[in-house]
């Protein structure tokens, strides 16, 4: 089970898995138009079952830099 957040680039899209207080997960996806994160659980299987060579796991520092490069101000 997820203990700490996991950070991915799915193609050009930053995606973060974050554990909830009740032990579930929230999948947060960066929207390049609004520059904000939104919840979309369908990205879980897109990231974990990628057959299109899109998924890249990154660390938090790189993730934050990539989000900022896309115009995001903060990680959700």
């Amino acid at each position: 089970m997820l203990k700490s957040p996991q950070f991915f680039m799915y193609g050009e899209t930053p995606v973060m898995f974050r554990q909830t207080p009740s032990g579930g997960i929230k999948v947060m996806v960066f929207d390049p138009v609004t520059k904000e994160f939104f919840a979309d659980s369908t990205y879980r299987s897109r990231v974990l079952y990628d057959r299109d060579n899109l998924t890249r796991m990154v660390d938090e520092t790189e993730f934050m830099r990539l989000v900022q490069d896309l115009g995001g101000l903060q990680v959700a």
Partner: protein
Amino acid sequence: MQQRESYLALANAQQLGPFAEHSWALYSKAPFESAPTQTAPDLVEAYMQARKLAAGFEEVVRHCASDLGVTCRVRPGGIKDANRTLEKMESKRKALPLDLLGGTLVCSSVTSMYGAADYAMTFFDVVSFRDRCIVPVFPAGYRDLQLTVRLEDGHLAELKVMHEIIAALDRHEHKLLEIQRVLERENLQEISFINNLVSTTLTEASQQMYTQAWQQALTLEGLLNERGENDDA
């Protein structure tokens, strides 16, 4: 373009040393990093090209498989589902996918996989080769040889070369994936503890199955012993 030494080292790390030079030669002819893009100006035109070419592509894939003495399969319905295409485009700066048309050659050994890729290089206009046995798909561990081929009008299609063990497992894994997709669609905002427990367990099962299936393929090839170890290591 990758460096030869690091490429061969990756192959060795995956117990594919005997195929490393072969794979490198295929990659050198058509490095996947240099793959061209679809010539169609937009998605509608790309789909129209695919629809026009689908029957011919299926025929030529079957012809190639017949020459090689392997089995083949093409995408059910011939052309990639539009919803899946749009999902993919969302995350690739709206680049048109290279797999609206897709075919698979299914081989009975690792040796015949590389032989099939070799033959495909002469049979098709191959513009991209990616060895996903050397670098398996993250994180599940799915493996194939992935080629992109150029058809009429410059339309690009995907040709995969799979081991029959992985191909057989793939069908079971798809059912596990469907269970997870349903859970995700029904819980878009948050996946609860129990649903996450189910999803995580299924994902781990996929990883274990691909690992064990590939070890079996390598064992049958004599690249691993029955304990899953490389005798030469």
